[in-house]
């Protein structure tokens, strides 16, 4: 029986590339206790769980994988359908719906999250590959629930309308600032072009990113 455990991680793993971190994962799962949230689910979808469900047999045909990774600072240990993207795992199984599906093909950026500190498209990331990774979503951008300065800047500049692309814009913008690609409006525009905003808030998005990068108004 698998357990989907969620508990605070006291010592987050530091910036190792995820696929190489398997050994740390094995060590970590030994300590994983806590509340089972959705045991026995193999896809991204929610399915009622029966105590007799034989997850081991699902594992035996090899189309599911056991993964353990840090999600917003908390360890997640679960069994996933190999086909499940990180995006669908977040949205359909872990109820973290802040990360959005705009195209499911890496062409819009609405699903941008940070994996091991880098911005990536969650739609093109198989969840099964995340063993040992650190994943940060919009829900975990700040640890204490305060707004990140870029979030404040988005509100202040009104760098959003419908708000659907906004979580992805912000995750991308935070990384863009961290990467140092904020030297000029032109540079920001180019390095924020992986996030489509159909409401057309680009001018204000650039202002919000620039304002946050310089740490002032």
């Amino acid at each position: 029986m698998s357990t989907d455990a969620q508990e605070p991680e006291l010592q987050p793993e530091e910036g190792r590339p995820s696929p190489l971190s398997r050994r740390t994962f094995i060590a970590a799962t030994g300590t994983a206790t806590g509340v089972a949230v959705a045991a026995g689910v193999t896809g991204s979808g929610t399915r009622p769980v029966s105590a007799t469900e034989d997850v081991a047999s699902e594992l035996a045909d090899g189309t599911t994988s056991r993964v353990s990774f840090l999600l917003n600072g908390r360890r997640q240990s679960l069994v996933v359908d190999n086909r499940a993207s990180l995006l669908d795992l977040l949205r359909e199984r872990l109820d973290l719906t802040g990360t959005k599906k705009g195209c499911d093909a890496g062409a819009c950026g609405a699903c941008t999250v940070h994996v091991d500190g880098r911005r990536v498209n969650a739609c093109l990331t198989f969840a099964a590959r995340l063993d040992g990774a650190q994943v940060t979503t919009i829900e975990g951008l700040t640890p204490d629930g305060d707004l990140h300065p870029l979030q404040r800047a988005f509100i202040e500049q009104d760098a959003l309308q419908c708000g659907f692309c906004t979580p992805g814009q912000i995750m991308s913008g935070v990384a863009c600032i961290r990467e140092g690609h904020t030297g000029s409006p032109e540079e920001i525009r180019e390095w924020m072009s992986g996030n489509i905003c159909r409401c057309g808030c680009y001018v204000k998005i650039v202002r919000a990113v620039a304002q946050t990068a310089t740490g002032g108004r």
Partner: protein
Amino acid sequence: MTPQPAPQPARQPQATVGTPRSRVDGRLKVTGQARFAADHGPADGIDGIVHAVLVDATIGRGRITGIDTRAALAAPDVLTVIHHGNAPRLPYRDNSFPDSIHPPGERLRAFQDDHVRFFGQPVAVVVATTLEAARHAARLVEATYDAEPPQLDLVTAPAHEPDVYTRGDAAAALASAPVQLEMTYRMGRNHHNAMEPHAIVARWDGDRLTVWEKTQWVADPRNELAAVFGIAQAAVRCYSRFVGGAFGNSGRTWVHSVAAALAARELRRPVKLVLSRRQLYFGIGFRPAYEYGVRLGSERDGRLTAVVHDVRGETSRYERHSDDLALGRMLYDTPHFRQDVRLVPLDVNTPTWMRGPGWSTTATALETSLDELAHELGIDPIELRIRNEPADDPATGQPFSTRRLHECYTTGMREFGWHRRSSRPRAVREGDWLIGMGMAAGAYPAESAPAQAHARLGADGTVVVRSASSDMGPGTTTSMAQVAADALGLPMWSVQFQLGDSTMPPAPVHALAWTMASVGSAVQATCDRLRRKAVALAVGDDRSPLHGVPADEVVVRRGWLHARADPRRGETYQQLLARNGRTHLEAVGGYEPPEEIRYSMYAYSAIFAEVAVDARLGIVRVRRMLGVFDAGRIVNPKLADSQAHGGMIGGLGQALLEHTVTDPRDGRILNANLADYLVPTNADAADIRAIYIEGVDNEAAPIGVKGLGEVVQVGVAPAIANAVFNATGRRVRDLPITPEALLMPR
């Protein structure tokens, strides 16, 4: 709906309306906590959701000869496959205007027959316990077809009888005009491509259906699903608090929503169905393609004498979608005008409204043709427009309520630096780039529709106002709170506006730029009524400091009801309610447009664009754009700016990038994804600015607005096209303008 008397002009001070305010749901949106249709689930008490995925037809027209579902049903976790062969016959009651905005015709039905009407039409829905399983099983459904060649050619296909508008004798006037021009413009099909895909969660509780649906009008899924399933409208409840952009694509309820509700009913489980980005190109309407013939006749001084428009626009074979192509009738003082609009039925899904519907299409033809005339005559394009500025509406003879288009021109000329434009094309060069400026005008009807609202003042002095409107991005939730706050004399933070629930007081479809005029006026009327109720309670209460003050002499500021003449004599809403033992006060109110329209009412735009065109490589980049708008009162300049930017960037896409490409052999859409259907990126939007001409329009709406959301895209595409001509000397009459059209000889 009971007609409500037009509200009194507000005597309340305007404290928040007109000021730049951050959107009240900004925090929810920047933290990912705003829940869009597909985000609903256990956190909303919807447990045991299963996932539905549509199977799409792979022919352009014909009949389904067989559907083999064995492999799909044998796949793990699959619950059912529903198709025309096993779907129950659904009542499909009529559901026409005003209960829906369906165009005339027979709407597409979910799995009710074996007809394939267009490529990508849903032919089955697969439901499984996981999304992965459902998606996979959908690929395992094997449908076979008897295919017929589809009719897909807008230019050669037989058209319906034309819709003709005529005044004067355009043919004769054209023949005798000293200057005559004839052009044909072609506009590609556009898809809205809102970032949020269409999505629905449907749950039945007995005979009652609840849907969390992406919609611009919560009444529409309610009415349509009630009609389809043969149940009372009151048995359907639709929630849609956040809408991830729509631009017109969610005004009507598309067939996938019926499929989801049907699956939920058959399975007795909540079903979530989210269209893939690809399916959005097939299963959702679009801005139709047009061929727009224009003939102009003018005097040598540029005064128009005759305009003839011959238009062909696409619709489906089963419904007649027609855009409102009326801009040409009213924008210029044209004594002789004729317009023939032919709808061409094709084997496509039915088109629908898309931002600036019709008006932005006509603007492309009309405003490019004006630019051509200006060039022909050697007259500045703005001067030409001013010479043709009408005194009254040339179509109706009515006076304009307000028309500040001339001010739009002069402001735009000054702010944009129009004097730096060379009237000679291809005259300005910077390295490899040819630089050009262009402009175009636009208009959009300032309409309104009946709306109602409910307001409730609580004992804590906060107010909740509700109306079944929608907010797909403009900030309805914020701007309505501003209107309500001013009417009630409250700070904005103590007023909450709620929308997106079909059980709320009715509101019209959130479209046509009429939400502020309609719902805003209803909110104001309702809140005025609520304030007066409170004032009446106070002045009639002998324990109130306001006892005996004439009600008309009481105003409310920051929650303090006081005598106008003596601001210290008063009390708070809280004190008033507490003393009277009231838990709350409430009011219902509404807005009804006047029955008699005495004015011609429009919002106006003047768009200015500067482009750089690579002289050798043909690529076009928009360097800067300025939109000057006469939209009446601007309730929130901060949000208005965002809307204006969005409209102009949408127009940029229309002009240079966007074109849904179909295969003429079978109607397959070939760029049904965001990597190949190009919408503007951040890098495409350099310098974009909006200016609003001050002034209210109290004829257009009691709150003085004319609507902004549509007019901001009207005129953008032709302004860019005209700038391309000014830069290059090459007139491109097909949109989008792509490099191949501009590979000019050295």
